[in-house]
């Protein structure tokens, strides 16, 4: 059975450096994949690469197959038909991501008119229904973005993304700009919609708590490569890759530190993409590094739960 989305050996280059260095994973319909990693690991670039919206100075190679068709090889005109219709994206700062001089109803309806060929009245009516669906029943479709709160705007963005019933929705750090309560509400909304419509959801975030609640599978990215990927429960329990282990240790969740005790961190910094080590990218910071780690980047090994490490942590 072909997966809905299959990414293989995706690389994104910029003047000599590989910002994304051979990322591969798959996504099934109705599945939620959490993508975690520090800033600079390439999470957002991954999203842009899938949408074909990379800045012109970057080039992508590899394969991105949606329903079997390779998106990277598509001409721009064909890619425009895919964007918004089959694969959609929700961005990080909703206040900046919406056109300030256009009513929100119009902005939701725009995709429908473009891809589904709906007339203005029909599209507006559908947009109204969609706005209700995302919890904005009390807001007029003629309102402008500056009249709404951050949480409301993010709901509008979700409505915009869902307008044409996409098969895949990518959410890029979409809750970072929101407070905790709103965050929880929005995530719940997204998860609910995804399950109802059997839509695949890719949740890009640095928030492990979020992922643990919502994602079926989790992928950990480090320095442009996949460090670990597998069912959320297994990844969270086993934490095979030393980086994953470090991420969890660095996250404060329920543990109380004694006064004066140093909080755990991962020593060192994410390597500059132009100056990555020859072997495993995490080697300089890893507590378990051995000689063979610096020889070549380790490949992803495993079945359902895969890890790119020559000396992963033992399963507890």
């Amino acid at each position: 059975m072909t997966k809905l989305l299959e990414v293989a050996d995706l690389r994104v280059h910029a003047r000599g450096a590989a910002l994304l260095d051979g990322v591969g994973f798959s996504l099934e319909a109705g599945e939620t994949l959490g993508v975690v990693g520090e800033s600079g690991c390439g999470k957002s670039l991954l999203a842009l690469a899938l949408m074909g919206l990379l800045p012109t100075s970057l080039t992508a190679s590899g394969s991105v197959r949606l329903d079997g068709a390779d998106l990277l090889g598509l001409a721009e005109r064909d890619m425009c038909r895919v964007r918004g219709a089959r694969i959609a994206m929700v961005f990080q700062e909703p206040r900046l991501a919406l056109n300030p001089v256009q009513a929100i109803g119009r902005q939701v309806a725009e995709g429908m008119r473009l891809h589904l060929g709906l007339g203005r009245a029909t599209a507006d009516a559908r947009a109204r229904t969609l706005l209700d669906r995302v919890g904005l029943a009390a807001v007029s479709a003629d309102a402008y973005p500056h009249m709404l709160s951050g949480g409301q705007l993010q709901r509008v963005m979700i409505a915009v993304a869902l307008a044409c019933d996409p098969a895949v929705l990518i959410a890029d750090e979409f809750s970072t700009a929101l407070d905790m309560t709103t965050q929880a509400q929005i995530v719940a909304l997204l998860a609910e919609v995804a399950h109802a419509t059997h839509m695949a959801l890719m949740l890009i975030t640095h928030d492990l708590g979020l992922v643990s609640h919502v994602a079926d599978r989790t992928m950990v990215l480090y320095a442009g490569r996949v460090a670990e990927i597998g069912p959320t429960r297994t990844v969270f329990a086993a934490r095979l890759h030393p980086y994953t282990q470090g991420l969890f240790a660095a996250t404060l969740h329920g543990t109380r530190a004694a006064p004066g005790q140093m909080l755990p961190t991962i020593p060192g910094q994410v390597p500059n993409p132009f100056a990555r080590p020859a072997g495993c990218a995490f080697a300089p910071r890893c507590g378990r590094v051995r000689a063979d780690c610096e020889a070549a980047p380790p490949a992803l090994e495993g079945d359902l739960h895969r890890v790119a490490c020559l000396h992963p942590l033992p399963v507890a």
Partner: protein
Amino acid sequence: MSGAVLLSRSFRPHPSLLAGAMLLALVLAPSLLSAVWTPWPPLRLDIIHRLAPPSAAHWLGTDPFGRDLLSILMVGARNSLIVGVAAIALAVIIGIPAGLAATGRGIPAMAVSRATDLGLAFPPLLTAAMVVAVYGAGMTGTILAIALFNVPAFVRLTRTQAASVLSRDFIAAARVAGRGRAAVLAVHVLPNIAGTLVVQATLALALAALSEAGLSYLGLGVPPPAPSLGRALADYQTRIFDDPLLVVAPGAVIALLVLGFNQLGDGLRDLLDPRIGR
């Protein structure tokens, strides 16, 4: 993401500064030279050789009175430059302190702001024509006129730029540390806005040259017999069919002068603007 964004900006050199400087030099050199030497005395009549085409003796030919066109243009350009520089210098000397004063909160500050708004509503040529009408045509009158309608623009620019700097935290820190208002303005605000003001002054010079030419064209500038680019254009306009060069040349010199200042101003702005890649 931030890394990718940084990498996608392309770094290009800014040749506009160089181009501007070169264009200006093209006009500046002959006009400055004219202070000590011109091919012919610009006022020298030579009726026998009137309306002559360009030749070895007269590189641009002669006008209806036999005067050497090149010499007239050189001195005319010099006059335009003198008027322009003097006028803008005056406008800056008055406008910048007034603009700084307008950032205050008292009645004088408000009065300055209101006066500036009113001043900006006056069409520049109107103001200039009025001043010249009162003071009479002549270099002083023209300089005053052009300075006058440039003052509101400098006041407004200084005020808005200074206001935005004043709202920054380091100003509050300086005030808390005990710095008086005037000192804060001089030491902290002025250096920060100097760049923008220099750019504005350069661009204003372009407009001043244009205005001087316009006023001269209308007969409100430097009176005859002093050579003037604008008045030359007006004088020779009737001869346009016989000898187009008489009309093309003065206008081209004005255009070159204005273009040079505009390019220089743009180049300076690109240099000072932290956003690169535009």
